[in-house]
């Protein structure tokens, strides 16, 4: 009797499995035949009731049935699984995605950030000051005498006879020294104004970073060393430099620092006006008259100051040939950096 049932189950199973089309139906098939309460398990339960003679024979047949069913089941499962995987590939992964925007800082600010971080590493504080300044802070205290041609170096926008738009960040030097006793070691970034005709090379507004260090034994040799360290970090380790005498009313001795033109490597090109050198900053030792104006003892203290234009630096670094692009705020430009 059991024998017949085994045969029937085998026929039924073959019949059932032939109708299975997907994983879900296969699972139903498994529950019907191979689960703990399935038909095959029931047959094994019934085997207990068989006679001692029949048991080994039926047992063997039953095992064969089970192995047979299991094998057919597994083969079909592998087949159906593989079909299932193929259906994942229906996603067209090449479809465009929706990018979230991360904005960016203005290129001038990025350049300024780089300069700030180098000087912060060299132990400088960062101090700010107002753009609408007094004539005294912008000129008088910085040793520009009234009616002196030195004032022609900086064409000024005036508010009236006593107030103006600062022409350089140097008045912040005066503000710091009026508030603090030495040592003073700070850079002063900010916006400055010059009443100059707007062209590809000059704009009426631009940005500067001023630097000031005052202490007991600050020397010109240290000024050179510090600025060379800055230039190497900013422009590259292998740069060549030179310090050229110049004139600023608030420093003496005064210098301009040039580096080898990195566009032509010193051979001479349009950008460096065929000199092979690029002027990157002005600097010098703080003039004793400036110390007198802020009540520092010019016998005891010495100091250096320097200043550089951000626009010029960024123009050089990014190969931009028109300063006005910085102030046009064309979205297509802003997105590039």
């Amino acid at each position, binding site marked *: 009797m059991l024998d017949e049932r085994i045969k029937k189950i085998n026929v039924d199973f073959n019949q059932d499995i032939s109708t299975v089309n997907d994983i879900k139906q296969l699972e139903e098939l498994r529950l019907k035949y191979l689960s703990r309460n399935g038909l095959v398990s029931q047959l094994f339960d019934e085997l207990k009731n068989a006679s001692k003679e029949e048991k080994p024979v039926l047992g063997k047949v039953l095992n064969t049935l089970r192995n047979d069913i299991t094998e057919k089941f597994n083969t079909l499962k592998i087949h159906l699984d593989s079909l299932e995987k193929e259906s994942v590939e229906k996603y067209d992964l090449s479809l465009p995605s929706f990018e979230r925007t991360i904005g960016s800082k203005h290129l001038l600010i990025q350049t300024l950030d780089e300069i*700030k971080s180098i000087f912060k590493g060299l132990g400088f504080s960062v101090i700010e000051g107002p753009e609408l300044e007094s004539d005294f802070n912008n000129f008088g205290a910085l040793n520009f005498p009234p009616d*002196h041609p030195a004032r022609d170096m900086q064409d000024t926008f005036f508010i009236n006879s006593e107030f103006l738009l600062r022409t350089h960040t140097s008045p912040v030097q005066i503000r710091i020294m009026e508030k603090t006793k030495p040592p003073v070691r700070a850079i002063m970034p900010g916006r400055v104004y010059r009443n100059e005709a707007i062209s590809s090379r000059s704009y009426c507004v631009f940005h500067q970073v001023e630097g000031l260090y005052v202490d007991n034994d600050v020397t010109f040799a240290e000024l050179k060393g510090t600025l060379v360290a800055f230039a190497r970090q900013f422009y590259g380790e292998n740069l060549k430099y030179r310090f050229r005498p110049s004139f600023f009313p608030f420093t003496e001795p005064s210098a301009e620092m040039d580096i080898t033109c990195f566009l032509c490597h010193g051979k001479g090109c349009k950008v460096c006006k065929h000199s092979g050198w690029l002027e990157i900053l002005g600097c010098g030792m703080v003039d004793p008259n400036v110390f007198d104006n802020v009540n520092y003892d010019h016998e005891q203290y010495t100091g250096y100051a320097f200043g550089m234009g951000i626009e010029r630096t960024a123009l050089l670094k990014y190969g931009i040939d028109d300063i006005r692009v910085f102030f046009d705020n064309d979205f297509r430009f802003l997105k590039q950096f």
Partner: protein
Amino acid sequence: MKVSLNWLKDYVDIGNISIPEIIHKLTMSGLEVEDSIDEAELYKDFIVGYVKDKKKHPNADKLSICTVNTGTEDLQVICGAPNVEAGQKIVFAPIGTIIPNGKFKINKAKIRGVESFGMICSEAELELSNDHSGIMILKQEVNIGKSIVKELGLDDAILEIAITPNRSDALSHIGVARDLASIFDKGFHLPEISIQESTHKVKELASVEIIDKINCPRYSAKVVQNVTIKESPEWLKKRLTKIGLRPINNIVDVTNFVMYELGQPLHAFDLDKLEGQKIVVRSTEAESVFTTLDSKERKLPKGTLMICDGEKPVAIAGVMGGENSEINNSTKNILIESAHFNPSSIRRTSKALGLSTEASYRFERWVDPSATLLAAERAAQLIANLGDGEVAHGALDCYPEKIKEKEVLLRFDRVSKILGYQIPKEKIIQILKKLGLKIVFESEKEYRFLVPTYRPDLEREIDLIEEIARIYGYDNIPTISKISISLGEKIDESAFEDTIRDHSCSLGFYEMVNNPLQKEQFASLTGNKIQILNPQSLDMAFLRTSLIPGALGVIAQNLNVGEKDLRLFEIGNVFNQNFGKEEIKSFDDFTEVQKHIFILTGRINEKMWNTAEKPVDFYDLKGFVNSLIIKISLDNVLNDSYYHNEDSIFDFYFTKNYDKEEVGIGGKVKKEVLKQFDIQQDVYCFELDLTKLKKIKANPKKFVEPLKYPKSIRDFAFIFDNYVTYEEVIKFIKKSSSELLKSVKLFDLFESESLGKNKKSMAFSLEYFSEERTLTEEEIEKDFNNLIEAVTKNFSAILRGA
């Protein structure tokens, strides 16, 4: 200023030093050579050619076909000059030559069908003068086929030097030569003066009186009689043209020559036109009008220093002569003025008249008061030597109070304290002596020097230290590679704005930098504007009172180029005159504060295959502002107010407040405002006052342990009257619940006919939990039901789905 190297060599022995070396050393000692022309290099390929034959070009009326002999061959050359003729010796540029004017290379060319193998040059093409009327025709003595460098004596170098305002002494060949003498330690000498004077005594021919002694400390003059006004000799014209001056006549050329030689501006008066043959120097006592020699009428302010004759003004002192005393071809007798004027006075006049001349440029920087007589004599000598006049005996020299040479002390240890490097004492002394300083006292540690009057910039010890350093060479002072700095507190005042910048970028905004100068219309939109006294244009005549107009300008510009979806920010200072202040007299009369602006327009989401398009709206703006405020931990410190006022540049807007003080404002910009900028789409912006925000103490960040107990969520929806605001409901819900309610979120909002007229539905999700325990269903239900009852009662609201 242009200087000629050959001219310099008249005063300093630098004959054996190469041109590049001279240029380098000048630049490295503070006389920056901005440009230079080495003639020998520039003209090396040009040769003397001979025009053997000239024919008309068959296809062009104005062109000639010339046969030019180059000494070795005959070449066919097309020439367009009207003055070319057979038999001329000319400057020929063979193929491959670079023409100085325009820097172009001569190639073999076909001109209107005829081949040309080189070019016959004009003076303009060679940059020898501006004459481009025809080719340059050479004297017959020059040798065919030889380089023009030799044949025409083009062996000079012309240096363009940038002179800083402190170095008035270097505005002459003598001044530059003196620096070269010190730099190279070479011999230096002034021109020698010896004049053949006539028997006529100058004092009997003219007189000088100074009334304004403050503004004219010295006035020297020489008189030359029976002058012949004519063209200058070649050598003089050549000297002047080389440095870019146009020769005029012998007298003007001599005065220019002396100015560029000694730095002293001279003026030649027609002595016979001076009333009473008298010079009187005085300042005007009232505003007046004067016609200068360029035939222009000038308005003179009160206090203008004038040169007058016995009756009337004849020149604006130090700036320009008058038409009424100008020399002309019939002039017979001249008075050569050589004066020292007060620099401030000349500068004020020059500024007031808007008239800057070579003379005023030098006078306002200081000319050497000790050298006026020398310069007058030098000019007289040159005129006499040209055979063009008779120099009267003696000089007029009015110098009431002599300007003394200053004494300056130099301590050698101070030199090393400033420079950080010890320059040998002998070197220091040598440098200063070569610059013309004299030692008046010396000891082991310090020297006292007498500074010549041509160096007004050397007044203090530090001035001498600079001279020593620049001549010694900055490059010879070591660049130290180790520094020590104090470990005191370091401050970064820009840290706050930089944080705001970073967050703004994270939120997808791009940074602008705008010009704070704008037109009145825009500055008036947003505040109490401040005007620029001397603006460049009306478009930049006021300082911005807020960042909004500038940002709107940027939006407009970008819309014009097709960029329609914009998210921008800016950080910058804005300026407002304080109310009730008529004028800015102190820092209390205006405020300059730092602001931040977010500005948005267009779509926040563009349409994509899986995303719907969404235009920017007020709630996007509010969201961005709130995100920023949360990031800087001020969300629990600031509160909002909402407005629909007419009296604003916004249709509707909100403010961020600290206590009662407004720290930010923004919303949807009114159409009328946008129209002023030609903007046709909606724009939202918000401006924060960073100066105020910076001062507010943020909530300190504290660690909160993650919740260990489950949260329970309950939802409800009510029908409210339309006028009930979200804010009112939220506040009421929070107030009416126990502390178990931790958050409330609006998740649905709509109006519909089915709700009834002027009704709206708001659905909220409420989150309950405790940090200490798991809440029971009962206590949550109790709280929730109480809340439903309270909301229903308070707002006469109807619970939906109940």
